[in-house]
């Protein structure tokens, strides 16, 4: 189940930031991080740009995608001090015509 939902149009590039402070309260930095995206059938999807890390904030550009498809983006981070591995999951809905507030 996703922790957050992002709706974007296919041509948009939208940088998504997640601050792992609540999930890694004992840490000040990340020792490792990964970001992966799959479509509804579990196939790897090319909807991510190059990730970056600043302290406990993991950022990734969400880009491309096919209209009307939903993608699951999993952001995983490891705390430097605690060595805890935590995840934040984003459901990315790519819609060209669906408008208005979510």
């Amino acid at each position: 189940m996703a922790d957050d939902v992002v709706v974007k149009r296919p041509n948009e590039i939208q940088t998504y930031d997640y601050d792992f402070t609540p999930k890694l309260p004992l840490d000040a930095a990340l020792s490792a991080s990964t970001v992966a995206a799959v479509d509804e059938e579990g196939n790897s999807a090319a909807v991510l740009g190059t990730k970056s890390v600043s302290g406990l904030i993991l950022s990734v550009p969400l880009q491309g995608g096919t209209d009307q498809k939903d993608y699951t983006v999993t952001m995983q981070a490891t705390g430097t001090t605690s060595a805890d591995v935590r995840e934040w999951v984003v459901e990315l809905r790519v819609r060209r015509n669906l408008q208005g507030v979510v």
Partner: protein
Amino acid sequence: MLLGEAKDVVREHFGRLGLNTTILTLGLTEGRKLIEREGNFWWMKGTYDASAVINQQDYSIQSGGDFDIDNFKDARALLWKKASDVNWQPVELGIVDHDELDQMYDEDDQGNPEFALIDNTTLKLYPPLPDFAYDLRLYFYQWTDNPTANTDTDDLLKNYGMALCYGAIIWGFEMQLKDLQGASYWRNLLGGTPFGHGGEIAKLKRENFKRDWKDRVMLTPHLGAGRLTRRSITNLNIYCR
């Protein structure tokens, strides 16, 4: 309608964040079940070829069984032939009760399949002991699944997409919102009152009947030249005087 569009239609009734996707997918699955419980529809049809085993009466119908069928719902017909033959012969399927067939045939009766019945997930052939490894062809209906990709479609979604949306919304109103009065509004749109006699389900049943009319029913003049052309499946003939 694409699956993604159906999802969006349902989401709009619960807030786009109000129904998480896992639950929404479950709702669409239950919506399809709600429709398919009302009848055996054309998109549920299938056939499966298997072989009888000499002296074996029972054949399982399930995933990995003798008839390897997922989500079997109902049987339409059963045919048999010898492997070397080119024409299929009908088996009377499900028209005589189990106990009556047990009385009609001895336990050691052999021969080609004449009658068959389905007991839970087991197909039983009569006479009980096939004397040859006959080819069997089962025509059946099965419960179907929604497409897995958001951009996919199938016949129900493509032509009667709102029926699936109504089904999912009913489930959502009952399970998520616990709003039975709201659910009854959508239930009426899906199936009318009494349920199954109106709405989208009535449209599906009319289309189903039209298709079956072409496939299965033959109007046969009771007298005259047409008599010689009537089909051997006697219970399907409608005689015109």
